[in-house]
Structure formats: C-alpha cells, structure tokens
C-alpha cells in the first residue's frame, strides 16, 4: 500500500503545481503522454490532465504530444468507443470463457478482453470529461482521468483481434496487471477529489457520479482480473501439463478465473470475522463472538473477493456496533451465558449471528442463490440516520469540523464513523481491504485469497494502529462508502443488500446473491 501510495502523492503535487502555473487549460496545450509500459517507469509524467483530449488513441502510445485545444470532433475515439453498447457481463459467461482452460480459450479470453475493455474505459472517460471543468481540474480527479486515458492507450496498442500468440498474450496480461495496479486506488482518490470540490458540486450529483462510476468499475475490474486469473491458472497448469499430458482438466481447486465453483460461504465468513475480530481486538481490546448457523456446509459458486469485501464491511459494522453499545442490549441472560465462557475476550458482548441459506433454483441454469443474514445486537440505527446509510457519507464530510455528519449516537451501527473518535474510522477504509484483495497476484493462486485475508489483516491492523494517533488528515479514512459499495457489489450480478434496524436493540442485514446460472425472474 505504501509503495503504491507514494507515486500518487507526488503525482497530485505535480498536478497541483501545474494547476497553479496554468490556471486555464488553454495555457497548457502541451501534454506529455505517459511513456511506455515498462514497470521501471511507473511515475506518471503528465503535468496536467488532457481533459478534452480527442487525439487518436489507436496506435503508439509514445506519440508524446497532444493538443488539448481541439474539442470533441468526429474523430473522437473516446466518444466513438463509449457509444458502443456493452454486452452485459454474467457469471455464466465468465465460466464459459474459462472452462475448461486451454491455450485457445486463453487467447480467446484475451481477445475478448481486448475488445471490451476499451469500450468500458472510454465510458469512464466520457463520464468524467462531462463533469464541470472545475471538478476535473482537481488534482485527484484529473489523476484518475489520466489513469483512464493512459489505460485506454495501453489497451489500444494491441491491435484488434489480438493477441494471437501466447507470447503476445503474456505481454497483454502484463499490461492488464499494470492497469489494475494503476487503478487500485481510484475510489479513495476520487472521493478525496470530490470532497475538495464539495462546494462546486451538489452532493446528490457527486453521489450519483460516484455510484455510476463505481458500478461500472466493478465490471471493468472484473474483466481484467478474470483474464489475469485465467492466465495465471494456465501458466500454473502448463507445468502440470507436461506431466499429465494435454487435455487434463482443472487442477481440481474449482477456480475458473476469479470464480470459485467450490466456494464455501461459511469459510469466507469465518475468515472475514477473524480479520475484523483482529482489528477489534487491537482497537477495542475485545472481540465479539460470531455464530454461523444455517446451511454452513453448502457450497455456492461465486467470486470470493466480492463476497469477502461485502462480508468484511458488514461485519465491521456489526462488530463495532456490538462493541460500542453493549450496555444497551445486554440482558441478564447474555451475561449469564458469557460468564460460562472461558473468557476468550468477547467482553460479555452479545454474539453476532450469521445465518446462511443456499437454495437451488429450478430452471435452465439450475443455479444456486445465497442468502445471508447478519444479525447484531448493537443497538440498531437511529431513524434519523437511516435514510443516509446508503449515501456516500463523505458527501456530508465537513473538512472544517473534521468529522462526519450526522454525529449520531453510539448506535449508528451502519455508519462508518462516530463523532467521538473520527480517527477510529480510519481502520475501516475501503482501501485497506481493497488493497488486500485487489492485489492482482492474489488471484493467481486461490489459496492466497483466503490466506491473504488474515495475513494481510494483521499488516493492516498494524498500519491502523500507527495511524490512530494522527488526526487522519491525509488518509481517506472513514469515507463511509462501505455500505453503498457493498450494495453495488451485491447488485452487480443481480443480488440485493438491505438493512433492517430495530433501534434500541440491533440491526439485521440481508444479503442475497445469485450464483452461476441463475436466470432472472
């Protein structure tokens, strides 16, 4: 995380300087394009975003100079690409593309990715460049804008209907990894940018811009990561092939790219709770007990990182609420129960109960659906806070007061900040989790995903511990999009996420996901 964060800081500094030097875009006609794709040169070189670039994007990304003074014209490659309708991405398609894995399939996947990715990136660019000038001039936002331009150029340097050879595929995958890495901090950066632009843009609009961006981005990211994962699986399998001969199927781990056909939700919930529990122990010295009930032994084919992200966010809310408002709901019965415990350190807290249900749908696909209920006794959510839990709460961030509004009572279980300790929320940032799961290499070996959770968690928790002393000014701490982003993830493949609060008692959160092959009703 630190490694990645550093260039960004410099980057925004450069952008800011450039802005000061060139207050209007017309004064900055010369744009240095980011050079090459070599990883030795990760530093972005653009002094300022080419906000309205219309230069031909196809071809050599080393054509360094572009003129921004021209406006959108008929040869606007971004507009052309963005206008192409996107085929919807289904889990079924992802499975079909990657199973069984062969060199032909891998190349087909690469070519598919090459054909779709530019459209998606162009749509991102289009959305950003339609924002008011003053917004995109913001260093953070222009940084993201440039990242997209850069990524689009990178993809387009591979001609259409390529790659055709495994060697070329290797380069292509390397490029994808590079892109994914470049964009791993997009959301926090954008959020930061929007906070700085707060007075120039309506919070509602920020919400909807970010929401759209986020949702599209889930697909874009998944597209790239799916191919990378297939590549890694193929490379891993290639060694195997020499022993077992061609035609041998999967190594049996059940992974098809990023999809785990043997995913065990209870296992993921458990590992997420370990991770969140560790944070709680560091931060509060206690760790609420977790009970998993229902269909705990049922498998559910899905993308584990998506489920991990959602569950981690939800458990963070549930655990924190449980810890922060324990007296409200503790009953003599609970006290009695936990006293019989051997004192693991749940602080006599009422347990968080996760109920799992996996159900098979009739019909063509015969797919499964997963329902998860996370029930805590953390006091529920105050009615006046309830309407805003799905908003990106940074839109109500007040930089002068340095805290988040509404500064609700201790029972705002679903909010990611509390008024009394603004820095405490720094542990619950998307970027922490995101970087854990977002590191490309995690997907190459499925084991890493699971192990990475708890292992990475410790590192994170340590980072947090050192952060806690500071005011958290430089971090994107507590931007409060855990809940809306979780919902975006849940809804991506047709699922739902809803919250039901019993104020004064606790909160129930319902997550519903459709697995591979579930038809829409």
């Amino acid at each position: 995380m630190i490694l990645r964060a550093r260039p960004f800081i410099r980057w925004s500094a450069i952008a800011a300087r450039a802005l000061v030097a060139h207050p209007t875009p017309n004064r900055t006609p010369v744009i240095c394009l980011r050079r090459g794709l070599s990883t030795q040169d990760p530093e972005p070189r653009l002094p300022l975003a080419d906000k309205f670039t219309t230069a031909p994007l196809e071809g050599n990304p080393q054509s360094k100079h572009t003129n921004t003074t021209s406006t959108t014209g008929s040869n606007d490659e971004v507009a052309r690409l963005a206008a192409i309708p996107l085929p919807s991405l289904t889990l079924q398609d992802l499975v079909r593309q990657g199973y069984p894995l062969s060199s032909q399939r891998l190349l087909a996947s690469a070519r598919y990715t090459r054909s779709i990715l530019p459209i998606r990136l162009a749509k991102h660019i289009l959305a950003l460049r339609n924002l008011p000038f003053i917004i995109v001039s913001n260093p953070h936002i222009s940084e993201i804008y440039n990242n997209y331009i850069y990524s689009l150029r990178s993809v387009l340097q591979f001609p259409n209907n390529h790659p055709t050879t495994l060697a070329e595929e290797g380069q292509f995958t390397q490029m994808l990894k590079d892109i994914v890495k470049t964009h791993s901090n997009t959301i926090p950066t954008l959020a930061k940018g929007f906070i700085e632009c707060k007075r120039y843009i309506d919070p509602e609009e920020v919400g909807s811009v970010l929401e759209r961006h986020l949702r599209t981005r889930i697909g874009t990211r998944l597209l790239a990561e799916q191919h990378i994962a297939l590549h890694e699986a193929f490379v891993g399998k290639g060694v195997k092939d020499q022993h077992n001969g061609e035609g041998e199927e999967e190594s049996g781990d059940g992974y098809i790219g990023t999809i785990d056909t043997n995913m065990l939700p209870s296992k993921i919930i458990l590992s997420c709770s370990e991770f969140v529990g560790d944070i709680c122990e560091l931060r509060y010295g206690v760790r609420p007990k977790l009970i998993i009930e229902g269909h705990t032994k049922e498998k559910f084919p899905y993308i584990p990182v998506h489920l991990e992200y959602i569950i981690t966010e939800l458990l963070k809310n549930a655990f924190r609420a449980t810890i922060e408002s324990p007296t409200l709901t503790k009953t003599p019965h609970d006290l009695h129960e936990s006293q019989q415990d051997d004192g693991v350190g749940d602080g006599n807290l009422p347990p968080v109960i996760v109920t799992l249900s996996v159900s098979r749908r009739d019909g063509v696909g015969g797919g499964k659906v997963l329902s998860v209920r996370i029930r805590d006794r953390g006091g529920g959510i105050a009615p006046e806070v309830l309407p805003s839990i799905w908003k990106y709460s940074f839109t109500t961030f007040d930089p002068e007061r340095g805290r988040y509004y509404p500064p609700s009572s201790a029972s705002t279980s679903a909010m990611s900040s509390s008024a009394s300790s603004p820095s405490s929320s720094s542990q619950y940032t998307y970027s922490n989790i995101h970087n854990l799961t977002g590191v490309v290499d995690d997907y190459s070996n499925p084991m890493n995903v699971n192990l990475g959770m708890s292992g990475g968690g410790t590192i994170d928790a340590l980072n947090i511990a050192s952060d806690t002393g500071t005011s958290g000014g430089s971090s994107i701490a507590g931007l409060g999009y855990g809940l809306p982003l979780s919902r975006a993830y849940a809804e991506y493949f047709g699922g739902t996420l809803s919250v039901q609060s019993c104020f004064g008692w606790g909160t129930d959160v319902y997550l519903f996901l459709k697995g591979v092959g579930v038809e829409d009703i």
Partner: protein
Amino acid sequence: MPNPLPSVQWRALQTTLRRGNSTQQPAAIALTPNLAPNLRWRSSSVLDSYVDKPARPISLRQLIFFGGRNLDEVRILNSANYVRSELPIRIAHRIRDMQKLPYVVVTNPHMSHVYDLYYKAFDTLRKVPEIKTIEDNDRFCSIVKNMLREHLTIIPNLAMGVLECKDLVPAAEIDRFMNKLLRSRISRRVIAEQHIALTDTFNSPFHFPASSAFQQPNSHPDFVGEVFLRCNAKEVVERCGKLAQNLARDAFGPDSPVPEIEIEGHTDTIFPYILSHLEYMIGELLRNSIQATIEKHHPASPTTKLPLIKVLICHAPQHIIFRVSDQGGGIPPDELPHLWSFSKGARSQARLENFARVPTMAATMQELLNSHTHTSSIVGHQNSINMTARKVGSREESSLSSLTSRPPNLRLGIGLPMSRVYAEYWAGSLELHSLEGYGTDVFLQISKLGNKSEQLTLDGL
C-alpha cells in the same frame, strides 16, 4: 392470461353460487339483485356535493380523548354528529373512485355488489337528521351497527372482484384502488365503532365490559371506546400465537408437531393502540410463520421439534417493532414480487381460479366465502363480536374467534397486503425479508402514537 373464458365462467358460476348463498345470507343477497346496469344510474349531483367536501382526519390521540373518562351526553352527541356527517363524505369519495373505474370492472358481479352496498349506505346515512337526543343517537347507532354487519361481505367480494378483473386493469392501478378503499374502510369503521362503543359505555356505566376480561376491575379507565390505551406487546403475541398454534393443530392433526414461539427483547413493552388491528396483524404473521414451518418440515413425527419462531419486541423511542423470524423455508422466488399485491401473485390467483373451474368444489367455495368474510373483515367483525362479548365477559376468546374459524390451510394471499394496509394506516410499516430456502423475517413497525394524524391525507381524500 390469454383467455378471457375462465372469467366468463367465473361469473356464470358466481350467479349460481349466489343463489345457493341466499338461504344463508339473505341480507347480503337482497342487495344484489340482477339489476340492469342502467338501473344503477343515480343522479350524481347529490354525490357531487359530498365528494366536494374533504374528510376530516382524526388522530388516535383525538380518538382517545373523544370519550375520556367524563363521558356525558354532550360528548356522546358531539361524537354522533361527527360520525353522522363524516361517514357519508368518506363513502362518497369511495363511490366516486369506483365510478371512475372502467365500466367493465364495475359491472363485475362482485364489484357491483360492493358498489350497491356503498350507495345504499351513502343514501341511508346522508338522510339521518341531526342527532339531538340520546334516543336519536340510539337509533343512529342501530343503523350503523346494521351497516357494519352488512358490509362484512365487502372485502371478500372486493378480493374476488379484483382477481377477476386483473386482466382488465393494470395491476398497479387496481392495487392502488384497493389500498385506498381498504384504508378508507378502516377509517370509517374506526370512527363508527368508536362511537358505538362510547354509546354502549354511556348506556351501561356500572357494567363496564372490559373489567371481567382483564380480571382487574381498575383496568377499565385505560380503555376508552375502541381504543386501548395499553396494549401489552408480549401478551398479544402470546395470545395470537396460542390461537394460531391451535389452528395449526386442528389443520394438521393432533400428531403433527407445531413450532414453539419464543419472545425476546423488550418484553415489558406496553403501548396505546387499537387492539383488534394489532391482533389481526400479529395473528396473520404468526399464522404464516407457523404454517410455513410445519409445511417445510412435513411430514414430521410427533416427537420432532420444529425450529422455533422467534419474535423480537423492540421498544424504540418512536416505534414499537415486532420482528417475526421463522425457519419455514422463505418465500418462493416466483411469489416474492407479488407479495403485496391484491391482484397479482401466482399462487393465490391459481387457487381462486381453480375453485372456479371445478364445479364440484362449489361447496368449498361456499366455505371459502364464509371464512373469507370472517377473517378478512376480522377487524370489523371482531369488534362487533367484541361488543356482544364484552357483555358476556369473554372478550379475549371472542376477539379472535374469527381467526380460528378460518380454514387454516386456505391461502388467500391477502393476509400480508391487508396487514400492511392496517400497519400503514396508523403510520407504521410492514416489511419482509426472505432467506430463500431457510426462513422469513417480517418486521412490523408500529408508530407510537403522538399527534400523528391518520394517514388519510395520503389517499388524496
């Protein structure tokens, strides 16, 4: 539905049914002659003048204070005249709503039955002169009582009418119509029954009916007219739970295990509410949960312990929340989208249509009609029972007697939408979350009654 034929058959069958019906329900039948549509035409100018007047909403708090402890003649007469002037206005609005429906819908036998009942009620009520004496009031009360009884056929008729007309009007539109009509019906019954109860209290001040039911003579000051000041959340759940459990035992046989009900949370919660409304909602929710749990684990040996139904009572500053969690397998995904609709929904629809298609089921249909009448209009019904029951002194059983009388495995698909209308009527809500394949959680949120007015204005009255 590709074929309009079933609907035609429905009507033909309906005619025969009604004839068979007439021996048992002469009062209702007398109102549904085979009038040619043109005979139903009435001058609308009288109606117009009433439609022009807005309904005057009343809050629960006002209802409580309307009677108060110092019930005297002036208060009774005031209350009577409020009801006398308010009822025809509210009915007029609903008649106008019906008049705006497509001709084909209102000529449906069920719908025209409802229309006629409404028009008759409107005509009767508007002609009642100002109430100046207690004797006037007694006469007025008997008119209203008769009307309440007569109107018990309205909900089943509406339900069937709506189902039959589902292809003629968009579902959303007919649901909107239903909601409006039902809310208005609740409002009218509340004010009418409140007044009748006040009158009863006034007439028999030394024989206060609630005392024997509660076995604490001094509890009666808490009870004014139709409005209970004190509803004990836990007791209501226990009472409705027991009845629903007994119902299940009757339906599935004495050997069939019945799920236990566990109550947790703020079990000492007491709040003001209309008890019959609360009992109806809680009763429906528990019925659903018990039934689903039994069916999910069917067949089960008598010794099987079915998973608990957990009821949480949460006493929040502004609300009382009842959360009913069962492990009855959740809601089938094809039913989920139409759960709250009166006119849509695969299963209940199929049931009613099946009844219509099989002539030999006519007897069952008869039962359905009857039971339907009882349960759907449980609130009105049980209130009228209440009044007699109070005098007998066994209020507790009688208030839910209609619940028990309903054939238990008869799924009509209107329990949930009806309950939601009741919940929303007093600014509450009803929400449901299904864990597909596992169970269902239902959240009933009751507003603690402050100065919140009835939600009438939302209906554009």
